[in-house]
């Protein structure tokens, strides 16, 4: 045994006997993946965003913040940001409100409640690409939805071919997928609310709405905070439905930032500009999530 090995052994033993060391060992695989799959790509994105590759001259040059300036001056980017903000401002409250309503409903002792929960949850088990293809067929001019609308006397709608309706159609699809998923977290939160609190409120003469608003809702703050943050992040990163259903159109009406990044990187082949947009998306998402956390914390 070499002297080096002798010196190493006590160090390993020390780590094994220290709770922090053991915790670190258990966390090591996760931290390694975090480093390789999250931190390193983020650093690489920042670095790449500071360069420009000229295909015409086959040269790469350091351009500092020029890619960011280009984006801020680009009308397509402005439009993508606007579309993404509208999408998120509408879809997040709607999805959470529907999820909460479904959670409250399906947390009751109703006949076949497990079946209904499974039915609402089912869309999340379908791959997003498959869901998108199914909805693509449904949204077609001669598709299922228009057939139904005709039956009830409503004229056929253009859905994905209209710049006024395409984004709303994508929202319907994303909500169809998402609400069942978020509902499950909220049901689990509802089941953690102690029954004694409800009973005490009932004895004090609180009606159903008062019990929900004064007892249940405050107790749901933690799961709601998680759902709000996770839902917001996932909706900032929506990609597959746009790629499959609309390709960002019509007239850029569904050009969400995530799709815009993909298009710049892999369709237009401008990796540096796409990385600058990735960095901006990361920053915006971090700011939004930080604000959400702060708002929720201040009410505790």
């Amino acid at each position, binding site marked *: 045994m070499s002297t080096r090995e002798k010196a190493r052994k006590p160090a390993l033993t020390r780590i094994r006997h220290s709770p922090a060391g053991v915790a670190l060992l258990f966390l090591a695989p996760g931290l390694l993946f975090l480093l390789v799959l999250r931190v390193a790509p983020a650093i690489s994105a920042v670095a790449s965003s500071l360069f420009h590759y000229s295909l015409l001259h086959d040269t790469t040059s350091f351009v500092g913040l020029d890619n960011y300036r280009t984006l801020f001056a680009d009308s397509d980017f402005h439009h993508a940001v606007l579309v993404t903000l509208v999408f998120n401002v509408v879809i997040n409250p709607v999805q959470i409100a529907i999820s909460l309503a479904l959670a409250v409903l399906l947390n009751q002792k109703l006949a076949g409640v497990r079946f209904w929960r499974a039915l609402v949850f089912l869309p999340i088990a379908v791959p997003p690409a498959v869901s998108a293809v199914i909805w693509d067929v449904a949204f077609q001019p001669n598709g299922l939805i228009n057939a139904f609308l005709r039956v009830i006397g409503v004229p056929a709608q253009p859905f994905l*071919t*209209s710049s006024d309706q395409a984004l709303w159609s994508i929202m319907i699809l994303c909500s169809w997928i998402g609400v069942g998923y978020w509902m499950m977290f909220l049901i689990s939160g509802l089941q953690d609310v102690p029954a004694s609190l409800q009973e005490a409120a009932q004895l004090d003469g609180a009606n159903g709405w008062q019990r929900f608003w004064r007892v249940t809702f405050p107790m749901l703050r933690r799961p709601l905070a998680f759902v709000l943050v996770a839902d917001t992040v996932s909706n900032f990163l929506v990609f597959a439905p746009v790629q499959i259903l609309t390709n960002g*159109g019509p007239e850029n009406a569904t050009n969400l930032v995530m799709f815009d990044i*993909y*298009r710049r990187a892999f*369709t237009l*082949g401008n990796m540096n500009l796409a990385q600058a947009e990735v960095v901006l998306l990361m920053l915006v998402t971090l700011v939004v999530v930080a604000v959400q956390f702060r708002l929720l914390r201040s009410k505790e």
Partner: protein
Amino acid sequence: MSQSGLSRRRLLGLGAALPAAGALAACGGGGDGTTTIQFVAPEDPKNLEPVIRGFERANPGVRVKYTPVPFDRVNDVLQARLGAKDTEIDVFAVDPPRVSALAARKFLRDLSGYREQVRRDVLPGQDAPSYFRGRLWTMPIWSSTQFLYYNVDLLRKAGIEPPSSDPAARWTWERTVAAARKAQKAGAQYGLLFDQTDRYYQLQVLPASLGGGSGVSPHDELTPEITNPAWVKAMRWYHDLFADGLAPRGVSPDQMNVIFSSGHAAFFVGGPWDVGVFSAVTKLRWGLAPHPYFAGGRPVTPTDSWGWGVNPYGANADAGLRFVRYAALTKAGSLQTIATNPIIPANAAAFPTYRRELDRQGGDASAGAGALMDHELRHTAIHRPRTIGYIQFEDIMNKAFADIRNGAEPAARLRSASSALVSAWGQLR
């Protein structure tokens, strides 16, 4: 304790062995000494099976593993994988106008050593789009043209005399649209469909027929020219087809020939490959005629088709090059590429066989198709523009076409597409 240590070592050994095995497999070498060529293209696997089997028979010890990718995603997939210097692709399909962009990005191996052989063995002019800055980057596998197909029964029902297959009696778009409207009034669900709706390949000829050019300045490969009166007029005409209900909105290009073959459309503009599709539908009575042009303009037709290129980083690029030469430069290989996929072979020796087969395949309906195809390839075919910005051009134009189809005002949409092109091409400088 010792057992536990042993099992940990075994586990570690297994952990190390698995990636190593993966890496070996990734090198494309089989344990039995075979070489595996990785091939990526947007074709139905059954269409490529004959040429793969033929090559493997002629080259014992070499296998071709084919991976299909969706037509609309070829560019994105190649950009992502070749941009990362992926060694897992040896041969890939290249749309000819993209040769410049791909070669400039160093995604293609220089094949200039075979330029004389290619010039000798492929149809005249078919190798032109395979060149960039004087060097050969791909080998042309197929070519293409477009015909005007018509539904015999729908035209008869509307009292319309079908168009002749004689190029000298070629219909204008104006006459075609008038006949399509009449057929629609007589019961056809749709009047006129394009096989590749919203794609530049199909629509370039509309402004070109009116003298509007390709959309790219002939003086500077990174300057758009899509807002001239000819482009606006052509796109207004395209817009009106859908606004008037002659053609459907919201239907993807791959469903267009299904609508025609199920007897719901009077006219259909499509390629020679549709002869095989329509011949297989026993209830459909159809015919074909020359591709129309605008009155006062000149007859022009789309052309070119996929060539195959070699990835310079491919683990088995040399074997891949042998496969490409087999498919492009030998008669047997070329004929195998079209055995189940009736598309024009770029190989000169295979072309006469295909021409005869095209005449025969559709019976009376396709009689004369070979001569018409020959005429169009010689006299009316126009290549798409060669520019290192073609990938951006096609993406931006295809989105503009889709928007115009869905009701966007053509002149305004062409102006915004032009601005997008200036911005995207500015990034290439």
